[in-house]
């Protein structure tokens, strides 16, 4: 396992992992980005994938959720193989996921309610009224009550992101993936999103995997982080963010986690 941080060392593996990634090798546009990436995420854990731009954070996330096929290695969710599973098994497992994309990725031809309802229509046997009620609840939970009949083009970027989160939570997934959820948001909206993510974790014990390089949420939300590096093409440190910030001997880790005054 390519952990180059002797001070912190690898964090103890969770006894009941929600996600197990082993020997993952990923490429982007034919170029090898990550090699031999191995880590585990415990159930109910807030797990951050951090690192500077271009180090392969989003590539790793896309390979984990099956949007890209890894060159090598395995990904297991809730004890069951995912990356090597057949399409039908994958489809069943996808019910356990929710994903918030950078820009929200809402379907522009559908209203917010229809956006949130679609996963429920596809994966549950609930009737239309119940689906609408749940969609309204999810939108209210992300503070978008009253905007159910709006189209994505009629709302702001921050609202799109929250609507995307409501859609990701529609099936009450065991694991939610976030790709740069705070990118492009103002501090107040960022803080609201922080509180929302914390509420999701605390209420349902949801496992959160978050790609980010924002320091505030890393220190306030993360139980554990892995840091990727472009030159090493893999993990250069993993552990609790405060421990890494205080005791990592790696200059890159310290520099990354000591930007600004948030860690002071």
């Amino acid at each position: 396992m390519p952990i180059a941080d002797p001070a912190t060392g690898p964090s103890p593996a969770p006894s009941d992992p929600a996600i197990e990634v082993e020997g993952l090798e990923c490429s982007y546009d034919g170029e090898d980005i990550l090699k031999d990436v191995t880590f585990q995420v415990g159930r109910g854990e807030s797990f951050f994938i951090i690192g500077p731009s271009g180090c392969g954070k989003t590539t790793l996330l896309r390979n984990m959720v099956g949007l890209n096929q890894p060159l090598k290695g395995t990904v297991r969710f809730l004890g069951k193989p995912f990356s090597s599973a057949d399409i039908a098994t994958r489809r069943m497992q996808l019910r356990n996921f929710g994903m918030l994309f950078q820009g929200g990725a809402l379907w522009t031809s559908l209203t917010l309610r229809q956006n949130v309802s679609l996963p429920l229509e596809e994966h549950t046997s609930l009737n239309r009224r119940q689906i609408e009620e749940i969609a309204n609840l999810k939108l209210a939970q992300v503070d978008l009550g009253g905007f159910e009949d709006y189209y994505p083009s009629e709302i702001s970027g921050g609202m799109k992101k929250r609507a995307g989160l409501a859609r990701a939570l529609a099936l009450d997934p065991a694991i939610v993936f976030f790709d740069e959820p705070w990118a492009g948001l103002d501090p107040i909206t960022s803080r609201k999103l922080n509180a929302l993510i914390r509420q999701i974790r605390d209420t349902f014990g949801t496992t959160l995997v978050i790609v980010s390089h924002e320091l505030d949420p890393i220190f306030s939300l993360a139980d554990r982080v892995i840091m990727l590096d472009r030159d090493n093409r893999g993990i250069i440190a993993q552990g609790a963010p405060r421990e890494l910030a205080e005791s990592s001997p790696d200059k890159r880790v310290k520099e990354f986690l000591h930007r600004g005054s948030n860690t002071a």
Partner: protein
Amino acid sequence: MPVPTEPARACAATRTEGGRLEVDLGGEWRICDQRPVWAEVLGAQKPERVRITAAGIGPWDTSILLFVLEARAGCRKSGIDCDIGSLPEKMRLLLGQFEATLKPGAKREHGEDLLTTVGLATAHATTNLRGILSFLGECVLGAARFPGRPHKFRWGDCLEQMQECGAMSLPIVSLISFLVGLTIAYQAAVELRQFGADIFVADVVGLSVVREMGPMMAAVILAGRTGASFAATLGNMKANEEIDALEVLGLSPIDFLVLPRLLALGLMMPLLALYANCVGILGGMVVAGGVLQIPASAYWVETQSAIDLSDLNAGLIKATTFGLLIGLSGCLRGLQAERSAAGVGRATTSAVVTAILLIIVADAIYAVVFHAMGI
């Protein structure tokens, strides 16, 4: 590694104490799985009170809230007191949130009444017309600026577009033009043969292809191929704020994006029409040789005698006009596109429809004008 075990299914166990029905929720409640329904749990029982508990509950999600809400609604309807005070606090909190969202709110109507619809359509048409006139005006101004500063013109983009709409269109133009020439020749052959006037197939094919079908078919192909591509490209650029970035830099999107495309189409369309004419005549020649046994040399001599330079010029003038109309429609609709994926799709469709409509209208106007001028 722990062996995954089958989760316990969601269940609702009931027992009666005096007049009170105790409902204990247990197992794993997942929204994608089956769950108990309140009407079935209650069955024929008619308790005075109901108490819902979840002491031994496993993992749960929104599906349990649906059940409790169903139970409360059912009890309320039957005048039964429903106690949920023993449920976990988080569950009660979410139930409160859920019940708050069930209150009917004002629905946002996207549809309008007739009068409003007519008014909005009129306002939209006016805005659209103003947009078209403004766009045409800017294009004329841009073209007027061009001779004064040719070094500022995007020659590289123009050449790229010429290759894209000219050379890259040759295969499809060849196929369509050949088939059109072939079809006209067949239709003419059937009639002309009855009068022993087989050789005049060359006249019919030559004139109809050179004056009408060559430029028209090339234009329709380019409207679908290049006009749509212009609209999609510019629409995407607008959605990605690339057009805004040009304007903020003080660059005119017309000079930067529209004029190179217009010039490329204006130059390539007559060449494509000329090429389509040749291929169309070739198609006719194949039918004449194969069906009517007319030698190729005789067919060619008859074609030359039927077509004069004015016919060719009429076709080329039309083709240049069609090219400009396709370019203008594609660029206009692209720049008018809404900033969304659906908006880009609509702009593309609209560009093709507008271009074909304008081509037909222009063709009709030219027919009248050329007739009046004796061309």
